């Protein structure tokens, strides 16, 4: 399996972090365990650790995202790496420079890692295939495909609150069809072996053949919430309104909004998650988003430790790979 997976190098080390599909339970648990250790970094008066000193990480954002970019930036800084924020939304690609030319330029600047955010599905895979073998690529979200660090920070948040995954019933509400977060979460939840994953949304927001991902589809929120341990909301993008996949924001909230009354149908200790930014009064009621069962801000906080784990695990083998390749070529 690992030999065909572009995320692993030929020594079996996790070299890129592009998707959670195909990563086994041991790999995911290893990332969560490493992240657990990074949480203590915040206890120190000097919050940096010298692990990635001298490494250069480039944030390649072809799509705007202040939150994700900031979280990666902070994670890299806490690891003492140098970070370049390269705003590609408004720069050279607009001038006609091809993606590959941009990559060559960044390679020649001696970057060690690219964090890629792109509106096209598969962009991070494409870049990983075309960069020098010593460079690590981390997917910061690509199109409707995958957002693996968000998936891992969601798993980390769940594990922090619930311990084991085995007996959990997880409900994901909203725009499953267009959500890379939902896809990554479902993949990780299955690998980590939760008891049940339920998705609930209007038909227009449920992808075809979604059952093949191992989830149960519900159209009525009240039924889906019964006995839930974990409730995950998703952001309803404004463009869904324009493309008429949902009638209106108000209509969506009336049928699928997570309100206090509906939350009572879940287990009393259920946690409420959301990748942010939340649309209050659309996916979630304000008093639920700010309520005591919500762990939305914790997710943001854990996102730093989880990204520190991903950066250091993927970059930890760079030197070994370089040495092995030099040994082969000499």
């Amino acid at each position, binding site marked *: 399996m690992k030999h065909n997976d572009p995320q692993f190098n030929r020594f079996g*080390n996790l070299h890129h972090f592009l998707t959670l599909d195909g990563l086994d339970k041991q790999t995911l648990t*290893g990332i969560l*365990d*490493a992240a*657990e*250790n*990074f*949480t*203590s*970094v915040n*206890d*120190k*008066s*000097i*919050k*940096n*650790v*010298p*692990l*990635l000193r001298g490494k250069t990480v480039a944030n390649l954002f072809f799509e705007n995202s202040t939150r994700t970019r900031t979280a990666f930036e902070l994670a890299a800084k806490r690891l003492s790496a140098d970070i370049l924020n390269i705003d590609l939304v408004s720069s050279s690609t607009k001038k006609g420079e091809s993606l590959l030319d941009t990559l060559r330029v960044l390679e020649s600047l001696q970057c060690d890692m690219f964090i890629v955010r792109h509106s096209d599905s598969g962009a991070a895979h494409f870049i990983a295939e075309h960069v020098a073998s010593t460079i690590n690529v981390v997917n910061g979200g690509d199109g409707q495909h995958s957002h693996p660090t968000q998936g891992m920070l969601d798993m980390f948040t769940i594990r922090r609150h619930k311990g084991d995954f085995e007996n959990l019933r997880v409900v994901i509400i909203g725009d499953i069809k267009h959500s890379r977060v939902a896809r990554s979460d479902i993949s990780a939840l299955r690998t980590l072996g939760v008891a049940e994953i339920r998705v609930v949304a209007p038909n227009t927001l449920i992808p075809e053949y979604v059952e093949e991902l191992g989830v149960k589809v519900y159209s009525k929120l009240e039924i889906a919430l019964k006995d839930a341990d974990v409730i995950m909301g998703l952001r309803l993008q404004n463009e869904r309104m324009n493309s008429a996949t949902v009638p209106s924001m108000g209509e969506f909230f009336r049928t699928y909004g997570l309100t206090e009354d509906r939350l009572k149908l879940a287990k009393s200790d259920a946690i409420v998650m959301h990748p942010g930014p939340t649309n209050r009064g659309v996916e979630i009621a304000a008093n639920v988003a700010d309520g005591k069962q919500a762990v939305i801000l914790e997710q943001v906080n854990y996102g730093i430790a989880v990204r520190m784990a991903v950066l*250091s*695990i993927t970059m*930890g*083998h*760079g*030197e*070994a790979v370089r*040495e092995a390749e030099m040994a082969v070529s000499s």
Partner: protein
Amino acid sequence: MTRYNTEQVGSWLQDMQQSLQHLITDTSGDDSPVAMIGIKTGGVDVGKHLHKSLDLHEPLGELNISFYRDDFSTVGLHPVVGPSQVPFSIDGRHIILVDDVLSTGRTVRAAMNEIFDYGRPSRITLAVLIQRTGHELPIRADIIGQAIDLSDNMHVSLDPSDMSITVSEPNRREPDRREATGEQGL
């Protein structure tokens, strides 16, 4: 293979306790409060024994030094041993830093770097159960349970269940195994 049983190791620990007790009560003018920190995982095992008998106010601190090691770029992230826990302020404290084996001094260097990221201790005293040969840095222990002369390939391991020590010369030590023991004389 040489084995030091619970009794032998126990007597070394007792020697260390006495030296530490002496150090704490007779600090000749230095009255900074004392706290103890063990380096995970072997140093925590040794630290627990010493901490129990010394009647210190603060609980035993635990350091995971894997983010401060100097071999990250060649061997990557080390086996996960749980987060550092220092549930007291380092500032102005006399820290007794405990490890099971002192060899190259690199672990202690990493631990001191981490301690200084928590605060500014008034003093650090290094206590180790075993001091073996193989220094690579100018770091010496203040309190030593037992000094053992060993060739480089010999391997010292502490069994925390009964606090016995095994010194062995594995025929072919797998690199993974070496990392997993966590105290490969670094």
